[in-house]
């Protein structure tokens, strides 16, 4: 490409990139209007905020743990073991991928109510995990398919049980796929709103995503503080992304390239 072409292409890319940044700038800028940092102080003094943060951490951490354990086991089994009904069982899990969560809110709300789990953040872990496992299984199975079967067979010849061979030989090789599944499970659980909003009614039990909604009610006429709240909620994930950019991008693209 000639020099003028290169420069104009770079200018176009810069303009698009900056344009994309405008809504976030708008959020930062609004959050400092009137009170400046005092807006942030007000929000940070909200008594429930640390608890809300902790709720998000627990729910997200729990979801990631459940998804990883469940899909590592199943991905291994669907890839390397033989059992009757394997294909149909695999299909049963994968169909879950096509089911949109909003189409499940009526039964899930009744289920959570019957089980007496309203206002219990832990109730979200099972549901989030169930919604995430189909896609995670797809990625896990693809990954195990790439690992040579001889690896584990040699372990079994040496006298290991199947489970021990899986744990000692294959599991240590799973770091890349574990990090991929962790990334998109993290994003899905941390950012989820609909179910959290439906099941967590008391402020103290809520996760972070539900907070902007209650703050909107609280600070209706106090926009800058609302934006300070948004910024505080957005910042951890922005910082995390910037620090772990490579892991985020590799994790999110892990599933699709193979198609």
């Amino acid at each position, binding site marked *: 490409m000639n020099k003028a072409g290169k420069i104009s292409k770079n200018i176009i*890319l810069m303009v698009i990139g900056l344009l994309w940044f405008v809504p976030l700038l708008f959020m930062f800028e609004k959050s400092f209007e009137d009170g400046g940092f005092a807006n942030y102080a007000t929000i940070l003094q909200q008594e429930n905020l640390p608890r809300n943060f902790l709720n998000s951490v627990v729910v997200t951490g729990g979801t990631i743990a459940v998804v990883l*354990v469940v899909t590592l*086991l199943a991905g291994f*089994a669907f890839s390397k073991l033989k059992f009757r009904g394997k294909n149909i069982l695999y299909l049963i899990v994968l169909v879950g991928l096509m089911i949109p969560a*909003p189409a*499940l809110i009526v039964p899930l709300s009744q289920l959570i109510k019957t089980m007496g789990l309203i206002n219990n953040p832990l109730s979200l872990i099972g549901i989030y995990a169930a*919604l995430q496992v189909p896609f995670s299984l797809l990625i896990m199975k693809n990954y195990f398919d790439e690992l040579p079967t001889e690896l584990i*067979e040699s372990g079994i010849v040496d006298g290991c049980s199947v489970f021990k061979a899986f744990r000692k030989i294959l599991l240590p090789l799973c770091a890349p796929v574990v990090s991929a599944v962790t990334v998109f499970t993290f994003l899905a659980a941390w950012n989820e709103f609909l179910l959290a909003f439906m099941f967590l009614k008391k402020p103290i039990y809520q996760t972070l995503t539900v907070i902007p909604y209650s703050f909107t009610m609280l600070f209706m006429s106090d926009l800058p503080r609302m934006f300070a709240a948004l910024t505080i909620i957005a910042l951890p*994930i922005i910082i995390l992304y910037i620090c772990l950019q490579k892991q985020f991008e590799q994790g999110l693209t892990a599933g699709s390239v193979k198609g």
Partner: protein
Amino acid sequence: MLGRKRISNYFYIVPIIALVVLFIYYPIAYNIEASLYSWDGISAEREFLGAQNYVDMMSDKVFLKALANTAIFTIVTVGVGLVAGMLLAVATLGNTPIQRLCKTLMFLPVVLAPIIVANIFTWMYEMNTGLVNEALRAIGLGDLARAWLGDSKTALGAIMVAQIWQSVGWYLIMFNAALTTIPTDVLEAARVDGANKIQTFGRVIVPMVKNTTFSLIILGIIGSFKYFELVWATTKGGPNHATELFSTYIFTNAFDFMKQGYASAISVFVIVLALIITAVQLRINLKER
């Protein structure tokens, strides 16, 4: 040996099957059953209706509006995402600082909670202090200023813009990853054969990322059936149902109108539709291969 079928092999899949049965298949079965009744979700009594909820659905103007809106929303946001994502992926394929910066800035919204995006855009579109209207006034187009989300002519478009803002970075990263798998000698060969940039793009790059494109279409459509936050946190489906989607209409029926049987019927419809669309796409995909 691994080749043996043993009962203990099922232990590895019991947890995953239990999870999807309890939280996905049981709810689907519940929806199917509940859709045959009229029920407010609370009282002990419910009235059997047979297929009446489904019959009502077909003549429910708001439901049909939600169907049309979801279709428009899906086609536009996935379509723009694919085209813009692919073009930008090609444009940022090298790893110069500017290309990296552009990628990072465009990907930032992808990691944000949709509810945060909803709040930002609510106030960007606001009539008096919103950035969009301020910008229009600044360049002398103040006549165009309006409450973008409050006007039934512009509300759906405004929400689609916000969704595109949030998702293009995702398409960009996906195509970027796919493009890096194209061997450089293929592109070199195209250049040697005298193909110009547009020919290379259309005849080499696009066909080579076909599988990624298929996956993105499926994931994009499934994703837009789930879309809820921005609409609900801004317009609640209004004004006059101009932004009503499946998700918001299910929510409103179930928890505001207390028509849970009807909400379940809509849910069943949405699930069946999602399965049909995916099945058709997979068929097309398999045929093309």
